């Protein structure tokens, strides 16, 4: 399950926080893209991976550089390929959040609630410790609690 921070100052000093998911993807994650990315790209951006650096446009079916993936899709891929880093999740739409919450592991951060309607268990982490949250309302309440 993924781990969520609601304050970037809760992130341990030895973990890197990435806010610009577009840039990080274009410079780093792109080099790691393999078949694991195919389902994620199809599920979120409704497009096909044509090769390591090419996708098929959902609009006119032309081949595009992989840098044209949505910021939400790039965020999910960043989290999947770099599970030891913390990524800003604020640019994820509901469709990207659903996939993000289903990842086996990874770290994300947002100061405000970003919850898909159909959510899996998540771990939340603050300076005071970690705990697992099982449902939407409980997670929303955690996000709304005073820091």
């Amino acid at each position, binding site marked *: 399950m993924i781990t969520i921070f609601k304050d970037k100052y809760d992130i341990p000093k030895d973990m890197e926080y990435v806010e610009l998911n577009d840039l990080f993807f274009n410079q780093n994650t792109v080099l790691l893209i393999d078949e694991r990315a195919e389902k994620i790209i199809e599920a979120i951006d409704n497009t096909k991976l044509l090769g390591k650096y090419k996708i098929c446009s959902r609009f006119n079916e032309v081949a595009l550089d992989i840098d044209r993936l*949505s910021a939400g899709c790039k965020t999910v891929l960043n989290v999947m390929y770099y599970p030891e880093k913390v990524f800003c999740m604020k*640019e994820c739409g509901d*469709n990207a959040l659903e996939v993000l919450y289903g990842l086996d592991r990874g770290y994300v951060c947002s100061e405000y609630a970003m919850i898909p309607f159909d959510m899996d268990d998540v771990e939340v982490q603050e300076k005071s410790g970690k705990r697992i949250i099982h449902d939407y309302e409980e997670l929303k309440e955690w996000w709304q609690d005073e820091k």
Partner: protein
Amino acid sequence: MKKFSTIHSSFIVDFTFQNNITILMGDSGTGKTAAFSFIRECMAINPQILCLNYLDYQKNIKGILSETEGKLIVIDNADILLNDETRKYISLDDKNQYLIIGRNPKNLFATKENLYELVSEKIGEQTKFTLKSYL
């Protein structure tokens, strides 16, 4: 500027703005950033357009906005680019038209009338992008 339209190869952008601030939200991968790139292209010949995105991350966005008048200001990656102070400035700015691509309406004093999503429609071999009320 109440309307904006442009063509980029097989894409048509045809936006009508009902408010001073339009917040463009919705699922990932619907074409919001593609539409942004088509509008940004128009900056080359249209001085009434100002586009900002994550490439402007290190700039003083509020400073840029406060020196701008009478423009269509389009901001992609707004959820990481706009801090609270800039959002408050935008909410009170009646000198510019804003199209904000993001999901967080905080401090923009937005109502449901400000929230829109992108609609893409196939017309032959062309794809037309328009705005539709989000709620």
